């Protein structure tokens, strides 16, 4: 485990209030990339542009709508969109108690355990620190035109309550804001 992960864990244990952003995260770079597997694993602070440059060497791409490539992959994940969620295979996170946890895997098909890797897409930094993400990538030649996702605010009270309770599962001390 890298020093930065240890630092982040300690920081969470020591604080009562934390706002996560990618510059502060200071955790960047490609961890693994296997073009013949169509799988890339990236540290969450990495700029999308830097990822795309690596992928382009093998005529591959992140297969979701990218608003701006100047953003970190962790930020895109936290803001959430269904087409991004579709290609998430696994994540590592640090939860609100400082635990470093692994969900999903670096394979195309995986139904072991609840799909936490996709549940946290759209969590806006309020449930956990996402430290690394594995994605399915695609050859550029197979991509069709992608359009900006349509998003609707959640109005159901039950839905809102469930989201609130799920926050408590990952962040019982309520430190992420």
């Amino acid at each position: 485990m890298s020093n930065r992960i240890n630092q982040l864990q300690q920081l969470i244990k020591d604080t009562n209030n934390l706002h996560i952003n990618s510059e502060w995260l200071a955790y960047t770079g490609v961890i693994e990339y296997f073009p013949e597997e169509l799988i890339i694993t990236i540290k969450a602070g990495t700029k999308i542009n830097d990822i795309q440059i690596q992928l382009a060497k093998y005529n591959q791409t992140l297969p979701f709508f990218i608003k701006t490539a100047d953003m970190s992959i962790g930020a895109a994940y936290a803001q959430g969109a269904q087409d991004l969620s579709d290609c998430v295979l696994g994540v590592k996170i640090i939860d609100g108690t400082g635990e470093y946890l692994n969900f999903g895997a670096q394979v195309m098909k995986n139904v072991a355990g609840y799909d936490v890797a996709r549940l946290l897409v759209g969590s806006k930094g309020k449930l956990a620190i996402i430290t690394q993400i594995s994605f399915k990538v695609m050859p550029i030649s197979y991509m069709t035109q992608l359009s900006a996702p349509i998003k609707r605010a959640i109005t159901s009270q039950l839905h809102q309550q469930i989201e609130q309770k799920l926050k408590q599962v990952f962040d019982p001390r309520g430190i992420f804001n």
Partner: protein
Amino acid sequence: MEVIQQLLKQLKGIVLTGKENTRPFECDGLSVYRQKPLAVVLPENIAQIKQVLKICKDNNTPVVTRGAGTGLAGGAMPLENSVVLGLSKLNQVKSIDVENQLAVVEPGVKNIAISEAVRQHGLYYAPDPSSQIACTIGGNVAENSGGVHCLKYGLTVHNVEAIKMLTIDGDELILSRQDDGLGLLALMNGSEGLLDIITEVTVKLTPTPVLARVVMAGFDSVRDCANVVADIIKAGIIPAGLEMMDSFAIEAAEEFAKVGYPLDAKALLLCELDGTQTQVQAELDSVLEVLSGASTLKVSESEEERLNFWKGRKSAFPAVGRLSPDYYCMDGTIPRRHLADMLEKINELSKKYQLRVANVFHAGDGNLHPLILYDVNIEGELEKVEEFGTKILKLSVDMGGTITGEHGVGVEKLNAMCHQFNAKELAIFHKIKAVFDPKSLLNPGKAVPELHRCAELGAMHVHHGKLPHTKLERF
């Protein structure tokens, strides 16, 4: 019992009780585990489902939701003192939106029935688990079912636009891909009936490809065949299907289906390409170049021949079933680069345990289905198979993969879950369940092992080297 009386009184004509009536529901596709429920209820509408939930909740009675019961991990196996909620009568395609390529269906609609209903519009529902003529869409969502075309067209989770679900309290929730929030829709996919009851599914439809052709290639070595799989992807091709079989599976399938598989091959690859005429031709040219080292090579020249090539692969399970009284089907998934190593390890274990193995798998996505042949009537053989199987699953996790690619955990892989997740991760799963089902009445005890189970297992593993399913009856 009070709960049975209340069900019989309030839901006349849709409740089955007694040994004989509930026997057809005592297991799912994993028939080695059986348990009769208190009662089976077959509701015809949502109001009746809500009534069942209320009665069960009031009486603290577990509810096991069931589609067609084709699952392979015991996910729909009844629990002792449970009520089975069978949704097979909710089988209507409610609406089809051709322009937006969507269909709204009830949970008991069969997978294949969706494609049949939309065929006239040049559309189909892409995920195609082998049980697609029988399995239901509700069950598919609960298991996040796969199939042979996942690499290109995705799993169930990729092809569901929205669901309507009920909580254990009978409250309705609509989850959509457009929700600006957490990924609750994805969470429900593959939740194995532990979080919700799915009452309606909006599925995405896919335009039917103009043309599909299959390349069949035989190889003199398993390693060559496995390497070629990586080479095809490296060449920038995403086949619609990419399946591999070993020599034992080839023999069994050929004897059963007589489709002309090369019996002298050590491994067989089936590679399907689909799209427009031009796309298929371009892909075919690249694939044939990659496959130039194959010992035999054939391309389907007609739709009839294409289906024939698939017939052997699709009948591989029953074909193997003919050679042995029982077989145990595994579902581990590994990074593709480890395929050849994994197959060698499985061969070694096969020799060690003196149990034959036929390997059939979705090579494109690294999803293995080794079939271990055994005879349940031989004393100790089931335990031997389970130990063998657990070793394969442990290997899958060690290689960076997973214990289950598409069949689910159910009751079958609870022990293996202890290898894939640590206590803290499992605790998160239990807390997620409690958000939706605080009294743990929906399919309790399945999919996620209790922490003490993993602790005991660790201890037992050290002392005896055996991995028994401590709480399960054996037949």
